[in-house]
């Protein structure tokens, strides 16, 4: 490591990404995840139910009981895992980059410097829209593996972040700053409807 210090920069004095306090996602966002899991579970149950209803001889009674136990076991487990991994998801925006951490078994921390972001997108799913949530996606030139999506942000926050990042990408377009509050108000109005 000593070879780095031959420049004037002291590597140990550089800002440390691992010591930054990361913010958790909006707790409301777990409802979105929960609804998604419910839908998935319902589909799986519907498929099995449909098969065993219409084709009675496919499963023997024994297998049916096993499937029943599995379902009873897997559904709570899926919620538990989702909750745990939700608790792991956290993000922060520093002056020069965005940091996002997730993963239960394998914890991944992704860092994207703003001066490498190509464009920003704001997504709102159906349920997220009802809850006033949005997600921010940062696109880089590094291909899909290096794009970063941060879900579960308040819409207003997401708007601010989006404008902040787009300003960092294109410092010349300062017009967006004036238009941003209107956007937020508009979006909020939409929510009230």
């Amino acid at each position, binding site marked *: 490591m*000593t070879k780095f210090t031959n420049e004037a920069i002291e590597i140990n004095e550089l800002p440390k990404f691992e010591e930054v306090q990361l913010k958790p996602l909006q707790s409301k966002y777990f409802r979105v995840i929960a609804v998604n899991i419910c839908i998935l579970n319902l589909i799986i149950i519907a498929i099995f139910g449909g098969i065993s209803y219409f084709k009675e001889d496919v499963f023997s009674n024994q297998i049916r009981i096993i499937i029943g136990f599995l379902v009873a076991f897997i559904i709570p487990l899926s919620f538990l895992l989702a909750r745990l991994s939700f608790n792991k998801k956290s993000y922060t925006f520093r002056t020069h980059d965005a940091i996002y951490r997730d993963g239960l078994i394998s914890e991944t921390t992704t860092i994207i410097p703003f001066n*490498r972001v190509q464009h920003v997108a704001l997504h709102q799913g159906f349920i997220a829209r009802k809850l006033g949530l949005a997600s921010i996606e940062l696109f880089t030139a*590094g291909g899909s593996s290096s794009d970063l999506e941060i879900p579960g942000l308040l819409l207003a926050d997401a708007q601010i972040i989006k404008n902040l990042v787009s300003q960092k990408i294109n410092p010349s377009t300062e017009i967006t700053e004036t238009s941003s509050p209107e956007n937020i108000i508009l979006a909020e109005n939409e929510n009230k409807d």
Partner: protein
Amino acid sequence: MKTKTNFSQPQKQSLLGVVVMFANTLQKSVRAFWPVLLIWLVKFESLNKVMVFGGIAVVIVVIAIVSYLQYHFFTFHIDEETNEFIIQKGVLNRTKIAIQLHKIQQVNINQSLIQRLVDVHKLEIDTAGSDKKEASINAISHELATILKERLINHSAIEKPISQEKATKELTSLLKISLISLIKIGFTSNYIKSFALLFVFFTTIMENLRQLPDNDVISKDNIVNYFDKFSLYFSIGLGIGIVIALVLIVNLVRTIIKYFDFTIQISKQSVLLSYGLLATKNTLLNPNKVQKITITQNFFQRKLNIITIGVHQASSDAEKVKEKDQIEVPGCTQLESDGILKLLFDKLPQKGALFLPNWRKLAMNLFFLLVLPIVISLLVKLNIDFFTWNEWFIYSTIFTFFSGILIWFSYKNYKLFVSNDFIIKQNGAWDIDNAIVEPFKIQAIATQQFFWQKTTNIGSVTLSTAGGTISFSTANYSEIKKLVNYWLYQVETSDKNWM
């Protein structure tokens, strides 16, 4: 000359382009209707010959007319006012493609077999951004293509014509890869690729043969009988020998056809590559666009002093990365490779501080790639009596031996070098790759750690660039974090353009 190089007026392609378009359309039609053609061919006797030949003649005439019309309506020019390159085409549906000159990243002049026969070239324009508009001119004389290419790339040349002249004059450095180098490369690389090709080729042929009715020639019995004449080991040896010889021949032929007459022209700002035996390819390398470079060499190649350089450029489209933006320079010597690297990076990459993986990487690889397969085979053996214990013992010894050697060398060669200006990752068991990336070209960094690695302080890092990723796994996590902080600092403070 002056009037010819003026691109401000819409102009047509070379008249010979009709031939190229005719051939292309014919090829497309044949491809689309080959089942019908096949049926005709089979039932040739029973068909009305006048109808068949008449039909074919009509189709050919129609295609010829369409080709001529396509040629007639295809024009291209440079709009000086808006600084756009404009292509207009289409017979019934008129299409106008306008490309802003400053968005043009790369202009390639290529030649397919047909184009080579009529001595015209294809000019392809590669643009930045994700718009998938493909702009290409199918038939253009080489002279015109070169001038147009210069104009498109140096669009600022109008303002500073002197600098452009200078640039063309400085085009002195020329590098040719000799046939001997290509033969060397053909014998020493891409074994697996050629083997896979051969495998696919033979399985398709066998499949097709099997579907033929009354096939006496290649029945299983025949082959078995044939091989029964020899002893088992002799026939195994013979089989392996034939496969090796075939792989080598395929390798050699492929390498020579693809890279024949590989020429590198180095001017002050760019590198021009041209190669190919049947179809000539011309590619312009823009040093700014280069994101990642891999240098590959195996044991034989080190002895023969040849190096393969893979150049990964930033691609306009994430899905199409593979073909166009990855360029390989096969078989240059150490000296030539240094020259190319110096040009692309301004200086020779220095191997800086060395980082090694944790010994657990070796342990993990041994477990998953050596112990686990053997345990599985043991379980299989215990359940199904497929082979004898003796055979199992022989095979697993051979497997352990080779797998062990490969795992050991891939661990031994797994290194990361970090200096101020370069990140070099070395890996590989036989073909040793050195991937070189400049820190300011990093797009995103991801660090990753499994929960069981927390106590042992081990983790991985992945660097994404626009030309591919580099990852270094199972290393000291606190050192990785330090490096990440350093790279972030470099990326966020650099005012250099990554492209």
